C-alpha cells in the first residue's frame, strides 16, 4: 500500500523551474533513496512535501489525504516528520527539552512527553547527552538530535535530509544503524536524501534519481547506479561516480 503519492509536482521560482512534474509513490515500510547532483531539487522536494514552499502545480497525497495545501505544522501533525540539512536545534534548550518539544505533537501532558523523549533519546543514542544544551552538542550528536526531534512527533513517514553528511566513518555506521532501526523496529517509512553513496546503497530499498528537477531513473539501487542517464547526470556535473560510490 502506498503511503505517499506525488503526482506531477512542479515548483517555479520566478523563471526557474526547480521541480518539474515529478511523480512517484512511496510504499508503506519502504526506504526510498533520493539522489541527484547538487541543485537538482532534492531539498526543494522535501520543502514542497512539508509545505515550506507552496506548490506551483501537482498533488501530494499522504495516507489517502490530499495534503498539498496544508500548512507545515498541519503536515507534521498528519504524520510527516523531517530533518534539516542545515540542522535546526532549539539552541538554548537542553537536548531532552528539544525532543520533548517534538513529543508534545501527540502528547498533552508533561510526563507523557518526557516519557516519549526518553525512549526516543535512547533510540538515537543520545541518552547520555540529554541534559546538555543543544548548541553545545558535537556535530554527530546534532544530526542525531534532528532525527530524534522528528521521531518524537511520532511520524509515519520520515524525510531525512543528509543526516550523515559531515560525520566521521564510525558515526556514519551508527547513523545507518539508527535509520535501519527506525524502519525495522518502529515501522516508519523513510525517504532519504544523501550524498554519501555508502549510506544510500546499503539502506535504500529503491532509489529515485533526479536531475534539473525531473526524474531520470527509478528502481533497485544496483540498477539505478548503472543507469546511463544517472551516470551522465553526475559526470555532467564533473562528478566521478566511481569515487562517489566507494566513499
Amino acid at each position, binding site marked *: 500500500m502506498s503511503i505517499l503519492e506525488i503526482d506531477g509536482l512542479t515548483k517555479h521560482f520566478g523563471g526557474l523551474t526547480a521541480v518539474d512534474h515529478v511523480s512517484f509513490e512511496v510504499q508503506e515500510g519502504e526506504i526510498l533513496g533520493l539522489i541527484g547532483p547538487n541543485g537538482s531539487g532534492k531539498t526543494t522536494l522535501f520543502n514542497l512535501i512539508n509545505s515550506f514552499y507552496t506548490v506551483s502545480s501537482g498533488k501530494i497525497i499522504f495516507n489517502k489525504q490530499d495534503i498539498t495545501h496544508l*500548512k*507545515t505544522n*498541519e503536515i507534521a*501533525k498528519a504524520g510527516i516528520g523531517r530533518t*534539516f540539512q542545515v540542522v535546526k536545534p532549539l*539552541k538554548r534548550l537542553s537536548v531532552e*527539552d528539544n525532543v520533548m*518539544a517534538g513529543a*508534545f505533537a501527540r502528547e498533552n501532558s508533561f*510526563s507523557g512527553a518526557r516519557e516519549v523523549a526518553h525512549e526516543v533519546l535512547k533510540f538515537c543514542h543520545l541518552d547520555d547527552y540529554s541534559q546538555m544544551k543543544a548548541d553545545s552538542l558535537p556535530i554527530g550528536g546534532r544530526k542525531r538530535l534532528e532525527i530524534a526531534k522528528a521521531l518524537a512527533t511520532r511520524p509515519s513517514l520520515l524525510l531525512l535530509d543528509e543526516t550523515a553528511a559531515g560525520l566521521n566513518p564510525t558515526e556514519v555506521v551508527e547513523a545507518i544503524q539508527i535509520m535501519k532501526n527506525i524502519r525495522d523496529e518502529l515501522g516508519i517509512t523513510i525517504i532519504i536524501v544523501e550524498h554519501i553513496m555508502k549510506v544510500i546503497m546499503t539502506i535504500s530499498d529503491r532509489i529515485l534519481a533526479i536531475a534539473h528537477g525531473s526524474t531520470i531513473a527509478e528502481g533497485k539501487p544496483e540498477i539505478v547506479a548503472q543507469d546511463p542517464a544517472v551516470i551522465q547526470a553526475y559526470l555532467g556535473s564533473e562528478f566521478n561516480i566511481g569515487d562517489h560510490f566507494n566513499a
Partner: protein
Amino acid sequence: MTNNTQNGFFKLTKFEFTAIAIIMISPLLFSWSMYFQGLLIIVMLWIILGLSWNLMAGYTGQVSFGHAAFFGIGAYAAALPYFHWRISPWWGLITGPIVAVAFGYFLGKLVFKLKGPYFALGTLASGEILRIIFGEEELITNGHNGIFYMTTWTSKLPYFYIAAALAIFSILIIRKIIQSKLGFYFLSIREDQDAAEALGIDTVKYKNLSLAISAAMAGVAGAFYMIYMGFIDPEVVFALHNISIITILVGIIGGVGTIWGPAVGAIVMIFIQELFRSSLFGLGPEWLSRLHSLVFGALVVLIILYMAGGIVGDWPIIANKIKSWKNKTEGQS
C-alpha cells in the same frame, strides 16, 4: 533550562516559599511609612508588567516595544465606565484584561505578519497611536484632563495585598505555563520558527496565545493602577518611555526568559530609584537625587554589555565569581 521538573501549581520550592513570605510581610516592616508601602505596591505592579512582557519577549521571542498599549487599555477599561456611568473601577480587574486581549487579537493580526525590526516598530507605533487618540477624543476619554476617582481606602495595606496576590498569581501562572506544552511551544518558537513548524507547532496560533496572555496580565496591571492611583491620563498610562521602555528594562535587568527575572528587575529598578531620589537615604549630597534615571539607564547599558542574561539568568556566573572572590580573599588573610 529548568524544565526538567514539573511542580504542582501551589507546590513551592524553598526559595519560592521564602520569596513569597518576604513579599507578604514586607509592608508590615514598613508600617511606619505610607510612602514605602506605596512603593511596594508599585513594585508589585512592575512585577506584573515585567512578567507580561517577558512571556512574549523572553519566552516567545516576540519583543514588544509597545506594552503601554495593553496597560493603558486596561486602565481605561476600569476608568471609562466609571467616568460615564459611575460603574466602580474595581470591575476593571475583570474587564481590563478582556478588553486588552481583544485589542491584542487585532494587533496580533497586524504585527505578527511583520518580521524583525518591523515587528518592533509596529508594536511601538500601536502604543503611540493609542496615546494620541485617547488624548484627542475628549468626548469619550476626557482627553488630557484624565479621569479622577476617589480611591476606596486610605490605608495602603489592602491595595498591597491585592497587588501582591495578583503578582504572585502571575508568577505561578507563568511558571505553570513554562512547565507545560504551552511553554515548550513558546520556547520552540523563540529558538527557531521553521524548526517549530516542522515539529507540528502552529506558530501563528501560539504567538497569538502568548500575546493574549501577556495582554491580559498587562491589562490587569493597568486596571489596578487606575483603582489604586485614582487618576489616569493618556500621557501617563500610554507613555512610551515611562511604561513601554521601562517594562523592557525591568525585564532585561532581571533576566529575559526567566521566571523570577521580572520580580528582581522590578525591585532593583525601584530600589535604585529610591536610593538616588532620597540622596542615598539622606546620607549623600542633594544633587544625587536628580540622578536616579541616569543611574538606571547606565545600569541597563552595563547589563547588556556584560551580563546579557540579566541578574537571574546569569546568576550561576555571578555566584561563581563571588565564590572565587571570597576564596581569594580568604586565602590571602
